[in-house]
């Protein structure tokens, strides 16, 4: 989940397992959502996006689920690999400001 503060939520999984990272958003008018991956010392990297007219979208090994009723977004990573270790954060966009709003992130650690 999301957190504001010095310590990011962490998720530790075994290599090969599936990972689920969650994000709660507050603006019910948000209509565009993105998941980013950020490796140490690097800039955020786009993973997958979804618009509010969809509940689910799949990419390569990743799936994003959107539940507008409870304002919840999740990222599922199948067969997690050591290279998936990073901080993952969600971003939302929509009225009134149309600025992209970013969560603090979840740190995913993949154990070999």
């Amino acid at each position: 989940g999301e957190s504001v503060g010095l310590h990011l939520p962490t998720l530790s999984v075994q290599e090969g397992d599936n990972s689920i990272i969650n994000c709660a958003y507050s603006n019910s008018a948000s209509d565009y959502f993105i998941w980013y991956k950020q490796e140490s010392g690097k800039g955020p990297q786009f993973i997958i996006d979804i618009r509010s007219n969809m509940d689910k979208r799949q990419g390569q090994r990743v799936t994003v689920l959107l539940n507008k009723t409870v304002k919840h977004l999740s990222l599922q990573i199948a067969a997690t690999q050591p290279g998936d270790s990073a901080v993952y954060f969600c971003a939302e966009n929509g009225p009134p400001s149309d600025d992209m709003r970013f969560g603090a992130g979840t740190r995913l650690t993949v154990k070999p």
Partner: protein
Amino acid sequence: NAGVTQTPKFRILKIGQSMTLQCTQDMNHNYMYWYRQDPGMGLKLIYYSVGAGITDKGEVPNGYNVSRSTTEDFPLRLELAAPSQTSVYFCASSFNLDQPQHFGDGTRLSIL
């Protein structure tokens, strides 16, 4: 394509000094952004631009200035560096407001 390129990668400034963080993109994106990222926090928008000659304030603009004379370049200026500006700064660009933003690898700035 190089994408979004930021220079320098690291910098240490003394209080009161000034500097310019450079950002250039080769994707012909109209939208460009500057964010700061503090430990355990989400990205905070400093300034953004919707095209050459147009800039606007984000959430945390105080102490910074920007210009956008060309589509490719979007420099960020710190006039009187303060310890509170110690952070990692990311530049990003996008085709539109509701499209994925592409990030540079950041400038790590310390003010002592």
